[in-house]
């Protein structure tokens, strides 16, 4: 009888341990739309500019757009993709290194975001001093459209940061065999962050594409400037 009770107890503990396993949902990371990357790479800035200050500011906007896209596409995305592939295979070896790398690259992306934001502000200042109405209006449109894009970018950067903190928490609790981290609240939060990151990446792609289209239209206007 005691033996059965003992076996029952061991089985109960095993079930308890299994039921504690969190139900985490992961999504494949979204790359920046390749059309955006290609158009940015091939962007030929007009040689005709209404003022020297405006020309430098517009060039800075395009260069910083390129840089921001490169940091995400060539540095962040491959790390997130590797993390996702590992999650799918339940292969957690080296996950601590990947999380640390992703944190560094996310900080780099945040810095390039700030430089881009500053570039748009400088373009806005230069735009106030020019006389051509068509260019002035198009530039204002570009700044307004890009404002939404860079706000979405900041949202994505901060969501990634929170996501990485939670991913690190789960990774650490797995290695430490610490069940205290595996609460329903943490599981819910992780899944919410993963979902909002998935939505945020999609939204960012659409807004970036729109901003780029306006930049191309503005560049055409600048090409015809006398």
């Amino acid at each position: 009888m005691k033996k059965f009770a003992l076996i029952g107890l061991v089985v109960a503990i095993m079930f308890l341990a299994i039921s504690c396993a969190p139900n985490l949902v992961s999504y494949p990371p979204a790359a920046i739309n390749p059309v955006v990357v290609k158009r940015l790479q091939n962007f030929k800035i007009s040689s005709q500019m209404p003022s020297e200050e405006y020309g430098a500011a517009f060039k800075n906007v395009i260069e910083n757009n390129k840089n921001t896209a490169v940091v995400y596409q060539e540095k962040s995305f491959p790390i997130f993709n590797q993390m996702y592939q590992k999650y799918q295979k339940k292969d957690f070896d080296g996950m601590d290194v990947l999380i640390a790398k992703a944190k560094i690259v996310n900080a780099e992306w945040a810095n390039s975001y700030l430089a881009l934001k500053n570039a748009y502000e400088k373009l806005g200042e230069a735009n106030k001093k020019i006389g051509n109405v068509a260019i002035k209006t198009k530039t204002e449109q570009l700044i307004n459209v890009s404002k939404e894009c860079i706000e979405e970018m900041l949202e994505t950067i901060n969501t990634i940061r929170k996501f990485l903190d939670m991913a690190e928490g789960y990774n650490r609790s797995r290695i430490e065999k610490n069940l205290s981290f595996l609460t329903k609240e943490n599981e819910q939060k992780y899944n919410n962050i993963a979902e909002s990151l998935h939505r945020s990446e999609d939204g960012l792609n659409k807004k970036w594409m729109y901003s780029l289209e306006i930049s191309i239209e503005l560049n055409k206007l600048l090409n015809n400037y006398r």
Partner: protein
Amino acid sequence: MKNLVLIGFWIMMLLWLNSCAGTYKHIEVEYPPLSPYAKYKAISLEVVSPKDVNKEEMKSFKELIIRAFQKRGISVVDDIERPKLVVEIMELSKESVIKRGIKWALAIYIGGPWIQNTSNAVTVKVSMKDKGKVIEFKEFQEFKESIRDWEDFKKTVANRIADAVYFAY
């Protein structure tokens, strides 16, 4: 004889469970230099805590926060003109040896995953007072950190506080 086998079995189970738990390899993140356009390059810091918090632990936690800021290129200065970061400690308690002993005793006598849980706790509320405005970093209430290694626990929360400021605009 049967009892001895039973005890042996339990000890083996516990040793097996304990040996499974590894130590998390904490990797120090090397942050890129702070952007010249970052919002906070220097801040003043105030750590507020209830009376029952261990003063030594609080001091070491404050030092960890300052170090985390330095690593991100943000200076902590004693200047009332600077934006003030207020870290309100709600809970800062390390699992006691007695509590751990009780958990081991419970695990040996009645079984169960007692030792697979920790009661270490670091709970904070973080806000920034800047030009008359108070910005609350609500993310510290969003999910509850729990780490078995006490020093790593304090360091992780300190890093998260510094990160919230580094990424704030």
